């Protein structure tokens, strides 16, 4: 029995020396130490031996097994080493890689997200509203009665003017101020991105269709100082901490006091150039404290609640940030333009 074991050991060792690939090594392992391997069968046959031989044969078989396993390991390592020593063929690493197709979000979508994210971080909720609006929500509920001269600020595209509910394409996202407040009680903090429409001939700086983002915060104790703080914070996040921000008085019928916010011109740094019409400042949004008439209209008591609102044009900000000279690019959707963002 022991002889047989030694024969197995010798042939196994001899065979092993001749093997030089990993697959064959595995076959060798199965042939000797697999479930039906030669060595395994010897070990299985132990129980048939007389008791006095069992121990000696068993321990010899186990020794051989340990030996063969060690040799196998050594041989495997040797084979791997040999393979690596030969080296791999060199390739031209400067050839172009296999292309992976790449899609991009429209720059307007990217900017809407960036702006909404900035306000989300301040606790504002993002909501959307209808683009076809009634005259009531677009104007009257915003303190802009019929035949008011402020209506000239929004050249309007109408769907019908004379029926019981005059309807139009919203000229701003502000109607959602009213819709949101009608639906909930203060505190309110929302931003509203969406398409708006103006009756305006299209040229390099005017589009009849554009995206606006409206913001509204109403609660007890919200002040003009909060408006300033929130919008300054936003401007720094979007345009960089080194930008100067300026508030000046402006008029929108649905806010009082009204504000126009500008940042210092990043082309000329405030000295005056074409981009900023020589003023050194670039307007980026309109804002103000929500007008008491608007609050009253939705059933909020203006003696108790105050709030601020703001609205900004998305394409305008994109144009400023990227030095885009023609607003028509955004709707032209030329892929050579879109792929740059």
């Amino acid at each position: 029995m022991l002889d047989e074991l030694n024969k197995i050991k010798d042939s196994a060792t001899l065979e092993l020396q001749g093997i030089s690939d990993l697959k064959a090594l595995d076959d060798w392992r199965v042939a000797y130490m697999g479930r039906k391997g030669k060595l395994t069968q010897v070990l299985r046959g132990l129980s048939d031996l007389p008791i006095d031989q069992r121990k000696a044969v068993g321990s010899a078989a186990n020794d051989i097994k340990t030996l063969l396993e060690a040799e196998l390991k050594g041989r495997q390592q040797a084979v791997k080493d040999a393979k690596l020593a030969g080296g791999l063929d060199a390739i031209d690493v400067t050839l172009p890689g296999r292309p992976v197709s790449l899609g991009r979000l429209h720059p307007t979508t990217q900017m809407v997200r960036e702006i909404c994210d900035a306000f989300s971080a301040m606790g504002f909720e993002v909501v959307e509203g209808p683009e076809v609006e009634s005259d009531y929500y677009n104007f009257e509920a915003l303190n802009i009665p019929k035949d008011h001269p402020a209506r000239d600020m929004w050249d309007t595209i109408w769907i019908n003017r004379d029926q019981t509910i005059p309807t139009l394409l919203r000229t701003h996202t502000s109607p959602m101020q009213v819709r949101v407040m009608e639906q909930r009680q203060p505190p309110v903090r929302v931003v509203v991105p969406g398409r708006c429409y103006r009756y305006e001939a299209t040229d390099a700086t005017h589009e009849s269709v554009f995206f606006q983002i409206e913001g509204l915060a109403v609660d007890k104790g919200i002040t003009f100082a909060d408006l300033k703080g929130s919008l300054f914070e936003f401007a720094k996040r979007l345009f960089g901490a080194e930008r100067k921000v300026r508030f000046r008085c402006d008029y929108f019928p649905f806010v009082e006091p009204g504000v126009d916010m500008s940042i210092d011109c990043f082309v000329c740094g405030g000295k005056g150039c074409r981009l900023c019409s020589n003023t050194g400042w670039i307007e980026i949004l309109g804002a103000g404290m929500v007008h008491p008439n608007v609050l009253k209209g939705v059933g909020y008591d203006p003696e108790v609640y105050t709030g601020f609102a703001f609205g900004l044009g998305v394409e305008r900000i994109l144009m400023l940030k990227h030095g885009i000279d023609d607003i028509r690019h955004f709707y032209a959707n030329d892929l050579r333009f879109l792929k740059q963002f």
Partner: protein
Amino acid sequence: MKVSVNWLKDYVDVSVPADELAHRLTMSGNEVEAVDSVGASWDNVLVGHVLTLEPHPDADRLRLATVELGGEQMTVVCGDPNVKVDDKIVFARVGAKLIDGHNGKARELKPAKIRGIASSGMICSEMELGISESHDGIIVLPADAPIGMPLADYMGDTVLDITVTPNRADCLSVLGVARETAALTGKTMSMPTVEYSELGDDINKSVSVQIDDADLCYRYCASLIKDVKIGPSPEWMQRRLIASGMRPISNIVDITNYVMLEYGQPLHAFDYNKLPGGKITVRRAKDEKLTTIDDVERKITSDMLVIADDSKAIALAGVMGGQSSEVSDNTTSILLECANFNRENVRRTSQAFKMRSEASLRFEKGLSPELALYTLRRATQLIVELAGGVAAKGIVDVYPGRADRLPISLTDVKVKQVLGIDIAQDEMVMVLATLGFGCKVKSKSELLVEVPYWRTDVSLPVDLIEEIARITGYDQIPTTLLSSEIPQNELHPMLTFKDRVRDILVGCGMQEIITYSLVGWQDLAKIGAPDPIGLINPLSTDQQYLRTSLRPSVMMKIADNEKHEPGLSIFEIGRTYLKRDQNLPDEREILCGSLAGQRTQRQWQLRPEHVDFYDAKGVLETLFDSLGVRVNFEACDDATLVSGRTAAIIVDKQVVGVVGQLDPHIAEQYDISSDPVYLFEIKMDKLLPLIRSMGEYSRIARFPGSTRDISLLLDIDVPSSKVQDIIEDTKLVSEVALFDVYTGDKLPSGKKTLAYSIVYQAPDRTLTDKEVNKVQDGMLKRLQKTLAAVLRQ
């Protein structure tokens, strides 16, 4: 509103440079768009006095003028035959920069010899100074022009171009801007001194005014000036009108314009002798006609307010005068109207006729009735002074709309509530007082504020707070961050869903586009989209309707881009707008995408290949897989897509969209030359409710699976999805992959083979061959029974 700084200086001491004034006005709400200097380039140009004129020895048409410049005399050649001895003229020395009449460019004046005579200077026309296009002769200055004074000092000016917001009717006037200037620079403004003699008869003997419709006319004031001489207005007045952007016409018209610019209140001058009996009635129009001074006969309707004589309308109230009573060169008596009309009515009338005049623009912004009388007296004064008229005694003043304004209570609490800071009461009083508000201290913490008549925009405490903040400066208010609690956010599944879908599609290599939601009728009609909602004032016919489908938008963008993109992969998520009775339209979110042309570009490792149906489907499968939704595709028909290459997209037995190859005939109609084009469309609102949130996770299998490959012979028209469904529904099957589809010579005709790799797996044990065989045999039997599928060895 263009405001001459010289004019401002009549009423307020302008103590800061024009640029600084422009800045302060801008910051406080009156945005100055431009600061234009008149005369900034007039170096070496001065007032001269013509002493002598001698004939030129060598040229009949030229003369030699000797000009006194104040301690210095110059002789120059002069070509203008109208120059007279003793005229005050504009003299340019050598070195002056003058505008060249031939090319409009500035050119430095050099010494010249004209027909042998040296000439070191020039007598100028308006064009050479750049103040008008007119080359008709040289400028003759008033006789009192100081000899030798630089012209820039004598008639230079700075003009501020101010964009006045619609609430500030008062700032559409020089006096209004002077008042702002005073408040912003710590000065006090003064009003014009209005004094004149009323040497004529009592006006009531010659003029009577009756207001029939007091709801549209709150006040009507009139004065009468006889014996006026029509002629040009004085040169200083003309200069100010030009600086303000108005054209001088004649003394009477110029005075009404001048005073309107000064006070902000429009006036109208009638030829008194053309008003029978001097009777004026203010009434709603009957159905009548009126020829306005622009020589257009207009049909006026009963909702419009007119000024009428005995029998007919003679002016559109607040909008435009009529021809019949217009002031002409022969006019000798003027009836001057200064009235206050309902702002909405003026606006409607002017819009109806598309006549937005300087007058209507002021009326529609809301003027105080109080303003009318002050303005009328100022204009009457100027007519008496400048047109040689005799004013009748008294003024007709019919004032049915007199209304008292109550003072506004302004408390410290309110100021702090809005601005977030405390402002001392005396500081508030000071700011308000400089703007003309009257303040009474009611208590330590409350003011009663009287609003001056010209501030029709102020009626609430917040309006006063804005006044205080804007004059003090918005930069004086600190910045704080919102400190109140953050409201409970509601969930907006559609918004999140849209963003998720966008991100997945971008991850699949698709480019997002955003197109116009307004399209032309034909764009929609070509694919038989539902009837759209139209606009009543579209910008163009190709933007006249709200889209009811996104497909035309996407197809148009393929056509636009295919010239420079061999392959296109684009999508849009946008709204369609569907008619809804008695309600705003139904705005539905739609996803529409397209793959067109080449799938791959030319590249050393790739061969250019065209996209096919399975590219589009692959994107959709990735989308639904990523959304965690099981999706099925079933052959269907769609009018835009090729029959037999179109599938309905089905989730939970509901059709949520469609995918297929674009019908080449339709592609052609949209000028698409890419071939093939695949299109998919998903109704986002239908899909959204079918997306379930993530359920509980399932354990990663601990026991190894057993993989079997099978090949099935089937009739060619059996959809593979049916085979796949049966396999997937078999118990213990954990994964199925179709790895080969074969149709061809080696098979009987009408047959195909589908080869699947199937993994069988149990969660709690390693499966034995016997178990797997049993399960697979059962599955093959079902396949045979339902689909006549035969296992191929």
